[in-house]
């Protein structure tokens, strides 16, 4: 199967996907109700989309194509309102967060579609352990070459998004010490990590051909990279964010990425290089483990810096672009979260105040549903 042609799209357009948790209102464990909720939302108003995810306790929503912060946030608020109404009708709760604090992976049930069955058969228990919840942001690019350039240029900023969105400190009832433990589940997949350093769509096509000839992959969907090109949409897709606990945060993260992409495209502050990836895994780990307090190494200058400080410096550089994109409010939200802490910090604070794990998950659901 050859790599499909890259569909051109309008630069810097945005699309957001959120994987969400479906919860039982009694014990706030995950509950396999995706089909009920999908049926209830079948007649929803708005251009957003809702679809199943790999297990029946998950659901994925996708916004329509957006260009600026306010309409994106409004659409996310609308879908949250409609979903929350449907969920209350069905006596379930919906929550953000990268992991469920105490669900048992073995109790999850695979959603009955051909693709999910294939994944389940291929990856075995890993598929059920993949009951983690992420935010994916698509950014429109005009062609494949630019998609790959932007993809690799963005790699330096991947830790920003991990730390800002981190909302998965608890796994199987235990505080992992990580801010984003979700990405550890993604690491387990053989085709996760980063994309190969190829800067032309033609070169990428050759790589894809080699991979498909080995039989290891069948389509682009089989790559679980942190950032991957999405030729059918004409976008690059950032996949490292945990699903935030509030939709406004999800909109802000998407628009921070949009402003960053505009900054990179228009100012070309550096050229991506293979050696940028020497520190990639280290920086990624720091962001997952310590969140905004992590220390990262600049791949060009080799200087160490606090992640929080690096985000502040980056915000200062991208804000003129955010202004042009009507995304200044998003940057302000990001700046505020640097002092308030990320969602992982909020979850730990909640847990300290109200110890039962179920209370923590209930509070997170109330935050997402704006109850």
């Amino acid at each position, binding site marked *: 199967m050859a790599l499909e042609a890259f569909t051109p799209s309008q630069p810097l357009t945005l699309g957001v996907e959120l994987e969400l948790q479906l919860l*039982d209102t009694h014990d706030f464990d995950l509950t396999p109700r995706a*089909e*009920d909720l999908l049926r*209830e939302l079948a007649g929803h108003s708005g251009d957003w989309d809702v679809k199943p995810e790999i297990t029946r306790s998950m659901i994925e929503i996708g916004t329509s194509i957006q260009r600026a912060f306010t309409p994106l946030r409004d659409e996310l608020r609308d879908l949250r309102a409609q979903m929350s109404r*449907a969920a*209350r*009708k069905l*006596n379930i709760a919906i929550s953000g967060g990268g992991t469920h604090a105490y669900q048992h992976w073995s109790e999850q049930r695979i959603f009955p579609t051909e693709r999910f069955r294939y994944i389940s058969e291929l990856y075995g228990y890993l598929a059920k352990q993949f009951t983690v919840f992420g935010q994916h942001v698509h950014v429109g690019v005009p062609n494949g070459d630019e998609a790959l350039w932007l993809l690799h240029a963005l790699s330096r900023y991947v830790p920003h998004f991990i730390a800002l969105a981190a909302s998965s400190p608890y796994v199987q009832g235990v505080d992992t010490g990580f801010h984003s433990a979700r990405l550890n589940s993604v690491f387990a997949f053989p085709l996760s990590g980063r994309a190969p350093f190829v800067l032309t769509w033609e070169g990428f096509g050759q790589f894809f051909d080699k991979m498909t000839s080995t039989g290891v992959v069948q389509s682009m969907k089989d790559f679980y990279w942190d950032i991957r090109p999405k030729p059918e949409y004409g976008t690059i897709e950032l996949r490292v964010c945990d699903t935030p606990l509030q939709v406004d945060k999800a909109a802000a993260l998407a628009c921070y990425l949009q402003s960053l992409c505009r900054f990179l495209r228009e100012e070309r502050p550096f050229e991506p290089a293979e050696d940028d990836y020497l520190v990639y895994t280290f920086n990624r780990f720091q962001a997952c483990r310590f969140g905004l307090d992590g220390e990262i190494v600049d791949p060009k200058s080799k200087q160490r810096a606090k992640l929080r400080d690096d985000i502040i410096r980056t915000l200062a550089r991208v804000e003129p672009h955010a202004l042009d994109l009507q995304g200044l409010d998003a940057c302000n939200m990001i700046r505020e979260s640097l002092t308030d802490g990320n969602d992982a910090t909020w979850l730990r604070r909640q847990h300290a105040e109200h110890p039962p794990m179920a*209370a923590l998950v*209930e509070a997170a659901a109330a935050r997402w549903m704006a109850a």
Partner: protein
Amino acid sequence: MRPAVVGALQAVYQQIVDWLVTLVRAPLAGLRGADPVLGLAVVVLAALVLASLLHRRARLPRLLGYLLVGAVASPVVLGLLQRTDIDPWKPLIDLAVAALVFELGTRLRPRWLFDNPWLAASSALEALAAGVAVWLVLVLLGAPKASAAAAAACAAATSPVITMAAFLEARPRGQVAERLLMLSAINSVLAILAVKLWPVLAHSQSVSGSESLTLLASASVVIFGSLLLGLACGVLLDRLGRLHDEAATMPVLQLAVVILAALLATAWGLSPFVALLVAGMTARSRMRHRLTVQPYLGSAGAALTVLLFVSFGVLSTVENWRTLWPWALAIVVARLIGKGAAIFATARPSGLSWRQATALTLALQPMSSLSVLLVADSFGWRAQLPGADAGVIQALLITTTWMQLSGPLWTLWPLKHVVGEAVDDDRPHER
């Protein structure tokens, strides 16, 4: 049914009983002469073994095994135990029922009825439709209208005990399971209300206006008194829980409050069912996740379940079934149609698929002695339907026996095989 067929069936049945009795004559004679407490203990052991075999070999619910062993030991089949033999165990059986009802209360979220008004409509309609259907069919068969109304009121209820015990056995997760809990609680409360008001309706011509008012006041006192008692017990558990904020003491506190609520309700002539249900709901609402209800009191609860269901089996009654079976069958069919019609009519607007509606209709069918005896002021085994036609009540008891013995199948088969909300395996389900 033709007399020849009935005769043949009777002969086969008698032959099987004789054969069984001959086979185990010596042990049976020993057991029959034994202390009733010891006798029941032996039957409970047998129930455990059979239930385990049924579950492992035929994937049948364990509860079914307990019921069957109780029924086989009852006067209806082998006569190992008499109904009065249950009496020494009655406090434990009452506790088992009370604990199950309290836990049912903790699982209900009344807010759901406001979030989904069609669910509220569905709850009221299915109880009403079942009652009306049963009344209609009994009247058509020639039953006195007042007695048919009494039977209809009892038949509107789904057994909350079988529902909750089956729920704890299979741990289902899904729309049908949650609606089943909600609907069985609501239709039982409505049945209690209907039966309390029954004398007013049944004897409206002979009862004077002041007597009617007295009966209405009495019914109101029972319902509102039970409500208040439940609220008070729920608040009490919350307060005591704050004083002794230790995980180890919580089950003991729960047990104490459950016993208190049941005893006070009995002593004051209120409804223990309503009081315990409200106590559970209040405790959950006030304590939230501090209320860690041990699934049915842990392993002690498991023992109580066996005892409870064996007792249900022992209390089976099929007297006069040869003459009353058409009435009993009519009640079964009318309930099924009544509940089904209401559930299907409200399925789509309330958010159910047709498949889920089918499963819910089937799962709502079990009845238990409790549903007949809800009218009693305590968990005693006396029906309190003065003036009701004995034939109609006996037909209702036969129906109850059928729907009780097959109850776990009605509940669990649709949950497992129609909607797949329960996983049919032996994995522990920690929540």
